[in-house]
């Protein structure tokens, strides 16, 4: 797969487009279908696609598991902190009316922020889940292959699974 140019070139150009679409779904969720959850999944799907074609090692070099853990926590905290801010402004927990002078604007800001929180969390969780599942059979500390001869089969069978006709 690493040498399959026909797959690599379109995927490389598709990944940023998918990410852009994810952002569109994220911030356009008030007006059209979509929202944080869907956006997060689409964003993660772009990373998954990249990993399928370019291999887990390259993907993990770009995005470490540690960074994902922090990202995931930040999303939930962003959501929760919006609730606490509204409480401190004298409203209910997650009562966005208080976030601005005009309650409708407050609602808009609140929804944007919590959807962002959901999106960040979902994108992080799905990417991390995929990395963890795909990294089974690899030693966690060093990410080296457990057995050298299994190297090719694991990589190929997994990467081959993403191809249309690729069979290990």
């Amino acid at each position, binding site marked *: 797969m690493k040498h399959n140019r026909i797959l690599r070139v379109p995927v490389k150009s598709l990944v940023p487009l998918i990410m852009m679409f994810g952002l569109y*779904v994220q911030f356009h*969720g*008030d*007006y*059209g*279908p*979509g*929202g944080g*959850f*869907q956006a997060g*999944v*689409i964003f*993660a*799907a772009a990373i*998954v696609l990249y990993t*399928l074609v370019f291999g887990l090692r390259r993907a993990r070099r770009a995005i470490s*598991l*540690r960074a994902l*853990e922090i990202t*995931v*926590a930040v*999303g*939930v905290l962003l*959501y929760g902190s919006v*609730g606490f801010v509204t409480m401190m402004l004298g409203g209910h*927990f*997650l009562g*966005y009316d208080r976030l601005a002078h005009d309650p*409708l604007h407050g*609602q*808009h800001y*609140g*929804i944007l922020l*919590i*959807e962002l*929180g*959901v999106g960040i*969390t*979902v994108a*992080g*969780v*799905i990417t*991390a*889940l*995929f990395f*963890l*599942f*795909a*990294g*089974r*059979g690899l030693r*966690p*500390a060093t990410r080296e292959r457990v057995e050298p001869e299994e190297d090719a089969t*694991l990589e190929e*069978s*997994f990467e081959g*699974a*993403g191809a249309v006709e690729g*069979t*290990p």
Partner: protein
Amino acid sequence: MTELMDVLLFLFLVITAFGIIRMRDLFAAVMMSGLFSLLSACLFMVMDAVDVAFTEAAVGAGISTVLMLATLAITKREERGDRRRVEPLPLLLCFAIGSLLIYGTLDMPAYGDPEAPVHTYMAPRFIEKSKAEVGPPNIVTSVLASYRGYDTFGETTVVFTALVGVLLLLGGRLRLRPSSTMDITMGVDLRAVKRRQAERRQAVVDPSAAGDDAAGDNGGAA
């Protein structure tokens, strides 16, 4: 026209489900389950539940298929065992539960019934007032993010907790190693772990047949 679409989509759904059951090639079964999700997404689309269709297509057809493939990479491609044999008891149980479920649907309002409770209770209120109270033209977003903000917070926490569980099981950095100074209490009897550590250290100092084994384990985990 819509009815025809519904019938066709449901028909394909049933065919796909039977295909998954009969298939022994797990790779093909995973692909078929992705197809199943895509058909479900089409059904949601026909029912005008665009947001749900979106999620189903992205999660069901996309991510979960890939996760299943990742799992498949570390197992066999073929299902093991003889599947031609029919087990009477599980079959009977399936039929019993299935007929109970179908019996349960008899109480449900007819498909598309405007008098159904779901269309008369809260939905009209959301449709009438969400524009003035919350603002966004997409009422689904208003309900999810504002009216039901608590629920969505709960959902986000569930997603977060799922990852924490997987991290603990499949091992990120949090890992109970004999050589590690970190003591993570994940329902693990720390005293037993300490005792085992002491035993291993003893084994390293005093190598015997069992000691070699323990030392090897230690080296592997470090």
